[in-house]
C-alpha cells in the first residue's frame, strides 16, 4: 500500500464553526495515518457548492467530504433520521445507537447504495430553537407565523402546530430575520448561531429546539478510495472518527454554554415551552414520523431501529432517573405501525 492522497471538502464554508469538526478529524488522520494517507482538506464552497459534494464523492471526483446527512434527503428520506430527529433522540441517544444498537450499520447501508462508506464523527446535542423578533412563548404563538426551518418532517410538525415553514439557505437566515422576511428562524446550536451574528438581529429566543433534538455529522468516503486503504488505515480512520465524535459533543456543549451566556448578556430574551406544549409537540411528531416512515421502506427501517433502541434502553434508563443519559419518554411512535411499512 503506497501513500494515498485524498482531496476532501465539506458542506461547510470556512466561516461556519461546524467546519471545525471536519478539521478535527482530518488533523487526527493526517497525524495518525500520515504515512499511508494524506488528506488535502478544502473548505466548503471552494471546489464546488456545498450541495454538490455528495454527487462528487459518489463519482470519485473527490475522495471524501464532510456532511450533514439531512442535506441528501431529496435522494432518500432515510437520510433525514440519520442526521437528526424531531423531538426524539438527544446527543447521547445517537452515540448509544450508532455504537451499540446498530446505527453504524444503517449508515453503511444507506450511503452504501450510493457507492460510499460513511463514518459518523460529529454529534451536537439540542439545537437552539427559534430566534427572531417575535416572542414564541407557547405553541399558540406559532399560529400564522413564518419560520425558517429545514427538513420535511420538521415542516410537517410545524404545520400541525399552526406555523408555516420557510426554506432558506443557512446564509440567508440572518438577513431574513433582520428584514422581517420571517418571524423567526432556526439555524444550528447556540455556539454556531452566536458566531453567525444572531444576537445582532434577534430579540427573542424560544427553547428547546424540538425541531432538531440532536444532530449527526460525518464523512462520506468514496468506496473505491476506501478499498484502496489497508485494513489498518481503515481502522485508524474509524478510531479518529470515534475520537472526533466524543470531542465534538463536549466541544459543542461548551460552545453552546458560552454562547447562551453571551446571548443573555446581549439582551436576547429566552423563553422555554411548557411541558404541556412539549407533549403536544410529541404527539404531532409521532404522527409525522409514522407518516414519513410509511412513504419509504428504508426510512421506516431506520426509524424502526431508532425507536426499538428507545424502547429497549428505557428498561435501564428509566430506573436511573435522575442520573439517566436520555429523556424519559413513554409516548413513542408505534413500532407495529412502522413495521407494517417496512
Amino acid at each position, binding site marked *: 500500500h503506497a501513500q494515498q492522497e485524498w482531496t476532501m471538502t465539506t458542506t461547510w464554508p470556512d466561516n461556519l464553526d461546524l467546519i471545525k469538526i471536519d478539521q478535527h478529524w482530518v488533523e487526527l488522520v493526517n497525524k495518525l495515518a500520515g504515512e499511508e494517507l494524506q488528506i488535502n482538506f478544502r473548505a466548503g464552497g471552494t471546489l464546488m457548492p456545498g450541495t454538490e459534494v455528495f*454527487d462528487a464523492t*459518489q*463519482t470519485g471526483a473527490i475522495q471524501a467530504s464532510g456532511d450533514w446527512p439531512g442535506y441528501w*434527503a*431529496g*435522494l*432518500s428520506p432515510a437520510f*433525514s433520521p440519520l442526521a437528526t430527529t424531531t423531538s426524539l433522540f438527544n446527543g447521547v441517544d445517537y452515540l448509544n445507537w450508532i455504537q451499540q444498537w446498530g446505527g453504524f450499520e444503517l449508515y453503511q447501508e444507506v450511503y452504501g447504495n450510493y457507492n460510499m462508506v460513511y463514518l459518523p464523527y460529529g454529534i451536537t446535542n439540542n439545537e437552539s430553537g427559534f430566534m427572531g423578533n417575535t416572542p414564541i412563548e407557547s405553541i399558540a404563538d406559532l399560529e*400564522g407565523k*413564518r419560520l425558517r426551518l429545514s*427538513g*420535511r418532517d420538521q*415542516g*410537517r410538525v410545524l*404545520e400541525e402546530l399552526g406555523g*408555516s*415553514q*420557510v*426554506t432558506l439557505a443557512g446564509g440567508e437566515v440572518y438577513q431574513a430575520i433582520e428584514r422581517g422576511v420571517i418571524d423567526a428562524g432556526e439555524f444550528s446550536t447556540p455556539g454556531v448561531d452566536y458566531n453567525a451574528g444572531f444576537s445582532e438581529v434577534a430579540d427573542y429566543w424560544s427553547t428547546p429546539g424540538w425541531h432538531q433534538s440532536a444532530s449527526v455529522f460525518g464523512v462520506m468516503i468514496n468506496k473505491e478510495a476506501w478499498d484502496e486503504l489497508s485494513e489498518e488505515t481503515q481502522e485508524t480512520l474509524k478510531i479518529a472518527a470515534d475520537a472526533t465524535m466524543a470531542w465534538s459533543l463536549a466541544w459543542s456543549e461548551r460552545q453552546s454554554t458560552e454562547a447562551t451566556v453571551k446571548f443573555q448578556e446581549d439582551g436576547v430574551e429566552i423563553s422555554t415551552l411548557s411541558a404541556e406544549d412539549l407533549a403536544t409537540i410529541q404527539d404531532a411528531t409521532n404522527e409525522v414520523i409514522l407518516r414519513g416512515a410509511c412513504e419509504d421502506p428504508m426510512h421506516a427501517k431506520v426509524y424502526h431501529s431508532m425507536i426499538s433502541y428507545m424502547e429497549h434502553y428505557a428498561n435501564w434508563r428509566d430506573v436511573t432517573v435522575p442520573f439517566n443519559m436520555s429523556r424519559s419518554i413513554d409516548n413513542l411512535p408505534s413500532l407495529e405501525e412502522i413495521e407494517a411499512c417496512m
Partner: protein
Amino acid sequence: MHAIAKAIDSFNELFGRIVAPLIAVITLIVLYDIAMRFFLGRPSDWAFDVTKMLFGAHFMLMAAYGLRHHAHVEVDVLKRLLSRKKQAALEIIGYVVFFIPFIWLMLTYGWSFFERSISRGETTYGMVAIPVYPVKGVIVLAAALILLQAIAVVLRAIIQLREENHA
C-alpha cells in the same frame, strides 16, 4: 452544406422563441409568491424551488439561440484584422480545440449526472417534493442544441474556406 446550416438555424430559432417566455413565467411566480405572503400571510411552499429550476432551464436552453445570433461574449478585435479565409480557419481551430472538449464533457458527464438523479427519483426536500431530474437533464439537452448550432457555424466556416479557394 449550406442547407444543413440553414435548417439548424431555423430549428434553434424556433426553439429559442418557444423557451424565451419562460422568463415571464418566472416573474409571475415570484410576484405570486410575494402576493401570497403579503395578502394571505403564507408563502407558497413550491415557488422558491420552481423559480430556481425555471431560471436554470431558461438561460441554458437559450444558449443555442444566443450562439445563432452571435450574442455570446467574444473578443474579436484581432480576428477582424485578418482575411476572411484566415478568420474561417481560426474559427474552425477554436471549435476543435476549445469547444469540442467542453461540449463532450457536458454531454457525457452531464448525461451520467442526469442519470444518477433520475434513477433515484431525486426530489427537492421541502414540504412539496418536486422532481429535480428534469432540470438536471436540461444540461444535456442544452449541450446538444449548442452542438447543433456549432455545427452550423463550422459548416459556414468551411464553406467560406472553400469559396476563397475557388476564387
